[in-house]
């Protein structure tokens, strides 16, 4: 019975839709913090930008690290991330109501290794990570996702 409840709760958490207006496209949703010298690559609207310390990330950005590159990111909901070398992460959607401290996000890890220490978004159960084969719903914890090419 408990397992059935857990399953239903998990399905609900993964399928739930946001109920409030969130940050607008173009808003700063997070910043690159500690980063290896020379920065990393951020792909925005098809163009390549140099993501150094303090770089303001937006919804839709793609974070790319090469061999030897690494970046720490803190989002406005206080979620912290580490993007390890040889990784590619797409910030597919990120909406956060900074007044009510709730929202939703979906990020896709295409390759590499990404560490996540979830922040306030995880409380809503609408923080998701996609890998090539699975979807992860984050309920509040620290974890590492690995995707080999």
């Amino acid at each position: 019975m408990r397992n059935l409840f857990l399953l239903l709760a998990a399905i609900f958490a993964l399928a739930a839709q946001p109920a409030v207006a969130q940050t607008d496209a173009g808003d700063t949703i997070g910043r690159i913090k500690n980063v290896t010298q020379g920065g990393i690559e951020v792909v925005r609207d098809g163009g390549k930008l140099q993501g150094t310390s303090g770089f303001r990330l937006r919804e839709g950005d793609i974070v790319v690290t090469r061999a030897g590159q690494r970046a720490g990111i803190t989002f406005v909901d206080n979620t912290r991330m580490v993007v390890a070398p040889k990784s590619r992460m797409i910030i597919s959607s990120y909406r956060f109501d900074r007044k009510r401290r709730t929202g939703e996000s979906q990020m896709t890890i295409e390759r590499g290794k990404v560490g996540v220490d979830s922040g306030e978004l995880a409380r809503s159960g609408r923080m998701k990570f996609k890998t090539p084969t699975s979807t992860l719903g984050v309920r509040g914890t620290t974890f590492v996702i690995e995707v080999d090419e």
Partner: protein
Amino acid sequence: MRKSLGIIACLSAFAVAGCAVSKERVTLLAPAQSGKDIGGVVIEYDDGRMGYLGDVSQQAKLRSGKAAHLVRQYDEADPQYANFGNDFPSEPVREYFYFAVGKDTLAPSELDRLQAWLNQNIQGRPGLEIEIAAHTDVSGGVELNTKLAEKRAAAVRAQVEERIKAGQITVDKDDIDELPGSLWWAQSIIDSGQDYVARDYRVAVVTIR
């Protein structure tokens, strides 16, 4: 021709073998937060099955295959993840500074406390950012309190910028963000049964990331 087909067949076999050993997995470095009893991470596999990770050092394979859906529990943290703890950005810190009733600026003593707290916490934070969110108590109605919250957020930002100008705080003004709160916070506190907190929620909540 036969030789070419053989080479293609070999390359295909290697490619398939490579896919078979490639990894796609998730590993918990900390237990699920208390109250999150459906797991710290809920997994929806590509075949529709579900999985849960809730304990530290639990690991799940994600990619379909022989051992897919298997959740392993390791006795101790894998050393390969040790660096991740060190490479996370500094944890955000948050503090509360209080307004007098009806005032939209912080009293000098509270501003001094804010300055000391900022100076203590802004070091060693590359890409520093400061968020100032101002709130009100529940008396006076939505319209009045919304305007007061906006005034408070702008006023505290101006107060901090004055101290930056005087060299008492070393922060770039562009790294400060003001955020008017809303009555929703005070109301949510009342709804949670802590109305004694909401009555005095005349506060600037300052976060350093």
